[in-house]
């Protein structure tokens, strides 16, 4: 549904292929090469070929234009190409774009991709130096001279207010990190495969930007991830059981900024994800109680807690309790980020989380939730964002 009335997108398209490169600290190849490899892997997984593709979607932050990926991947004519803005907030929206193109007949097979050398090349965590005096540059520019220069610092300013409001210690963020790392420990593709952590290790890790510690921050990564979207009808003829896009939505809040929404509300929530949640529940007809497992965007731990509240998995201020005692782990109240998340598997701007949602519906996750039939996937937090509800077919 849109903000005001139900939409007609749900159930029209499905994710039929997922593919990724390895996740590393130094890929040793270009971002374009990573993108092409990921696109090919996703097409192979779907049982499709480059010749089947007529649409491509990526992030505005991606350095690989659709036409260049097509050129290098053996893809021919394109009838649909699109890019979504706002960093990781674009992740689920690429799939929404693809689904809308497929549902309207604008395209038949659309590949969504994201590829970067975010570790060996430019690291977001290294901090901003300057910005052009555009509207976007000015919005970011307010926080630069005083020294808020990194994603960790922007998230921390929200997190400090959240923790203060609900009288929580930064140690509670460890529940998120421990769950992610437990899941990653079982995932051979994860950067932190076989390296779980304890709450004590989280609490002992060094400060990055108080109240965030090292183990609250994701693993900056080189790699590429792609997913293939087509109509549900065509999906049923392909190799894997379709992951049906039951709902897809974007959201921006009032007085929204990209990472610096410090001037509105009480800083204890993520209003943009509230916008996404209302649409996803309204359009899919599902609610929090129907979700078997969720992939909640986790570049930093605090926003995972806030998402649990925005989506109604628990009441405001109660996410830390919800997450305690393994609440987010396999077998817990709501298994979250069963691939290990961006803290444990890789920071791929959320695209690897969509792939995990698909694996859960196929029954092929390394941390499989029994009979998973409805999965929530969210995109970047602290920015205008997006989300998906994926369901099993039929």
């Amino acid at each position, binding site marked *: 549904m849109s903000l005001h009335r139900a939409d007609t997108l749900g159930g029209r398209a499905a994710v039929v292929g997922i593919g990724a490169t390895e996740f590393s600290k130094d890929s040793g190849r270009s971002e374009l090469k990573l993108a092409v490899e990921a696109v090919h892997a996703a097409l192979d997984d779907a049982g499709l070929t480059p010749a089947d593709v007529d649409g491509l979607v990526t992030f505005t932050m991606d350095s690989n234009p659709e036409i260049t990926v097509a050129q290098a991947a053996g893809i021919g004519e394109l009838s649909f190409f699109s890019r979504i803005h706002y960093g990781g907030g674009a992740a689920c929206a690429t799939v929404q774009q693809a689904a809308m193109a497929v549902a309207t007949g604008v395209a038949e097979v659309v590949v969504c991709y994201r590829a970067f050398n975010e570790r060996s090349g430019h690291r977001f965590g290294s901090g901003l130096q300057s910005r*052009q005096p555009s509207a976007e540059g000015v919005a970011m520019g*307010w926080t630069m001279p005083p020294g*808020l220069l990194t994603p960790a610092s922007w998230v921390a300013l929200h997190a400090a*207010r959240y923790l203060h409001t609900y009288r929580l210690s930064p140690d509670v963020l460890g529940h998120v990190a421990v769950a992610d790392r437990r899941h990653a420990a079982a995932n051979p593709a994860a950067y932190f495969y076989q390296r779980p952590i304890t709450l004590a290790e989280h609490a002992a890790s*060094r*400060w990055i930007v108080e109240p965030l510690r090292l183990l609250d921050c994701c693993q900056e990564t080189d790699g590429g991830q792609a997913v293939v979207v087509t109509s549900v009808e065509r999906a049923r003829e392909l190799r894997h059981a379709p992951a049906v896009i039951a709902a897809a939505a974007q959201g921006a809040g009032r007085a929204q900024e990209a990472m610096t929404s410090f001037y509105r509300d009480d*800083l204890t929530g993520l209003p943009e994800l509230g916008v996404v949640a209302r649409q996803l529940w309204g359009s899919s007809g599902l609610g929090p109680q129907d979700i078997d497992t969720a992939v909640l965007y986790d570049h930093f731990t605090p926003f995972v807690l806030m998402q649990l509240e925005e989506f109604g998995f628990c009441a405001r201020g109660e996410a830390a309790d919800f997450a305690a005692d393994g609440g987010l782990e396999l077998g817990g109240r709501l298994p979250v980020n069963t691939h290990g998340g961006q803290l444990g598997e890789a920071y791929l701007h959320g695209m690897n989380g969509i792939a995990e949602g698909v694996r859960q519906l196929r029954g092929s996750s390394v941390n499989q939730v029994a009979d998973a039939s409805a999965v929530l996937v969210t995109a970047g937090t602290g920015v205008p964002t997006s989300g998906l509800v994926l369901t099993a077919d039929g």
Partner: protein
Amino acid sequence: MNLEAYQGLPSTVAGVGPDLVNAPMIRHWCEAMGDANPAYTAAGAEAFAPPAMLQAWTMGSSGRRGHFNALMRELETAGFASVVATDCEQQYARPLRIGERVLFESDIESVSAEKRTALGTGYFITTRMDVRAYDEAAGEKPGEATPVGTHRFRILKFRPAERAERPQGVDAKPRRPRPVVNRDNAGYWEGVAAGELRFQRCDACGTARFPWLPGCNACGSDRWHAEAASGAGEVYSKVVVHHPLPPAFGTKPYTVALVELAEDVRVVANVVGAAPEDIAIGTPVRLGFQRYDEELELPVFHLAGPDRLPPLRVPLTRTLIVSGAIASRDYQDVHHDAELARAKGAPDIFMNILTTNGLVGRYVTDWTGPDARIESIAIRLGVPAYPGDELQFSGEVTERGEDGRLVLAVRGTNRLGVHVSGTVTVTVNVTRKVGRATT
């Protein structure tokens, strides 16, 4: 060198101030320091000298300084040719009034072992002076002199470090990211240059807004005007940045706060002059401004409340440095002659400790008002104060006695770091409840 032998020997014997305490020197001092305290320029017997002038009355005096001069010669012969003052502790027994003659005696209290410092290797020499005075203009005799105060002074006599070992000069300092300015927010930065933190207010619906935008999110109107914030606010959220630490932000974790202003808008700014652990969400703060380099000036916040002195900014002009040195009768070339200062290893002339002391006194009485009595000032110098920079004073009450006696911790920072930190004891007129009303 047997420097220990000097300890306990007299430094100055039978010192006599060359001039009676007089209105012109007081006026010059006040002009140099920018001190408008009317107590120092009142008519006739009401006037008294700024307490921090204590040493100035002793400068250029007669008096026998044999042992002290021998100590200096011995160190200079050994290659410790440069000198810098590091500490000044003064206690004031009573005010000095116009017409009084100052008499003084001092001892070499201690000579340190050889120390390595940022400036170079050398020796700290501490002298302690007792100052008395009698009203010569009224016909009193030297024998009638009564104690005025004591003055402990510490200098570093040193061999300058090689250039490579020396801390970076003003110009080499890495710079913070620049503000991002365009037509939509230029008015904000014009406000900063004018010493104001300006936000916008919608002409149509009256909603205050920050950050600056050409239209109102509440009603969509494009009509607005700018208003200057009162400066009162509180910390709404805060972080301490540990990693990465860009060079322009120093070597220690720094605090960035989201401050909610009294006008119901929020701004991101540094809270300065306080340790990260002393800055909590909900802490009241007061607006100030800090200059970081020749281009960049930013609004900053200081901890506020009845026990906080409002910040004072003092531009470090060449005029202030030179006139302060002359007003304190300190003719050391490093305080007025840039060429000779450079020859001695400094990048430029720098402020003398007596001027710093005078500014500390001014900062305190600016806050207390003219009927307060400063009882003591004890300061330690950190980084030098060079021309083109700015000193920003902050202070807090650390003790509050029932008799109106306050102990204040005062700091003055500049671009290079903490220039001066010290303790001032002051007695205020308790009926005026100094500081209680400054929240």
